[in-house]
């Protein structure tokens, strides 16, 4: 029984410092695997390198294209706004826009009223009109007020399209009214002579003033001899 030992320890002792050679094919397989690994790494590097370059190029091209397109569109819009009158699909006016438009039109109509006021104050007050003429003036006034009402009405129900030339606002409704931001109000002064049926229309107020002054002077002159003749007549009758 002295020679009996634990089988594990015996195995350990027998296998200590031993070695066994594998077949030569093992290195050949390892060599092939290493070659394949090297090729795979090279291929990965190739795809990574050229893939990166391609991605960067595409990104740059896309960025440039987007930038150019936006710039081109911006310049195209600007040139269209400046040069072309291009009708677009109608856009509903918001309440604010409608208010602004109506305010602008109100200003215009106010200007027209001013000219009318000038016309009436300067022309009608100091001039004697026949009944026909007065009727014609009344009719003209009515027309003006009716037009004003119509404009206001159209603005409130109209729709807006932008035109490029001089930023015109184009309103569509029962009637087409063009409102121009760049308008100039020209005030004309009229002078009507009922005796000669002549009408003088001028933008120079001084011309009208001089005509009125001249007609007043004539009227005064014509009144003085008349009064003298009346007093003489009275004296004659008393005598």
């Amino acid at each position: 029984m002295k020679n009996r030992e634990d089988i594990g320890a015996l195995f350990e002792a027998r296998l200590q410092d031993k070695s066994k050679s594998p077949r030569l094919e093992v290195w050949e397989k390892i060599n092939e695997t290493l070659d394949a690994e090297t090729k795979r790494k090279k291929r990965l590097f190739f795809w990574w390198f050229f893939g990166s370059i391609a991605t960067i190029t595409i990104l740059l091209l896309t960025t440039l294209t987007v930038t150019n397109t936006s710039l081109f569109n911006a310049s195209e819009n600007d040139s269209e706004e400046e040069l072309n009158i291009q009708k677009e699909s109608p856009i509903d006016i918001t309440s604010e826009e409608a208010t602004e438009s109506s305010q602008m039109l109100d200003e215009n109509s106010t200007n027209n009223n001013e000219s009318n006021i000038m016309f009436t104050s300067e022309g009608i007050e100091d001039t004697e009109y026949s009944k026909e003429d007065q009727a014609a003036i009344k009719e003209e006034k009515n027309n003006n007020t009716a037009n004003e009402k119509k404009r206001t009405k159209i603005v409130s129900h109209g729709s807006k399209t932008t035109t490029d030339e001089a930023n015109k606002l184009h309103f569509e409704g029962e009637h087409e009214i063009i409102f121009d931001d760049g308008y100039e109000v020209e005030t004309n002064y009229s002078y009507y002579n009922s005796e000669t049926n002549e009408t003088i229309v001028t933008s120079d107020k001084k011309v009208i003033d001089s005509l009125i002054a001249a007609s007043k002077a004539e009227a005064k002159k014509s009144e003085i001899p008349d009064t003298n003749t009346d007093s003489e007549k009275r004296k004659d009758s008393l005598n």
Partner: protein
Amino acid sequence: MTLNELIKNCKKNNREAQSELFRRYKDALFLVSLKYCRNVVEAEDNLHDAFITIFQKIKTYKNKGSFEGWMKRITIYKAIDSYKANRHIPIEIKNDLLEDDTTVLSKWVDLPLDALLGLIQELPDQYRLVFSLYQLDGFSHKEVAAMLQISEGTSKSNYHRAKQLLRTRITDINSTSQIKATEK
């Protein structure tokens, strides 16, 4: 070429240096593979995988500790990984056939290397791994349990049963040879 130069050149993926490294350590590592694998073919495959991993990870070797020990650990872990990937259902061992005694006459174990390795390879996978790790390569039961993801008790039990199986096989071999000798 010194070992340090060899390692340095292997880190540069020099094929000649890799070949030299294989030549120097193939036998020792093949024996390790044979202890952990079921047969020679599996051991060669394990050796192949171990060397590929060694060449890939040699850049991480910091010249601390034994280089051969570092390579042996890689070889053992490769075998364990292979076992885990193809883990089989443990073979039921009939306890009544096994004796508690695990001692044998020392002369019974005077067998050729291939015969000894053959006896180890015949062991069930988990028994073989536990026996090789604990008995032949000096890992503790705690380490074995962690490596194989089993409990420490299972490791101890597997080790004991592996020895019982080996003893049974050695006894059979010797009794057969004795019979042959008396017949002659």
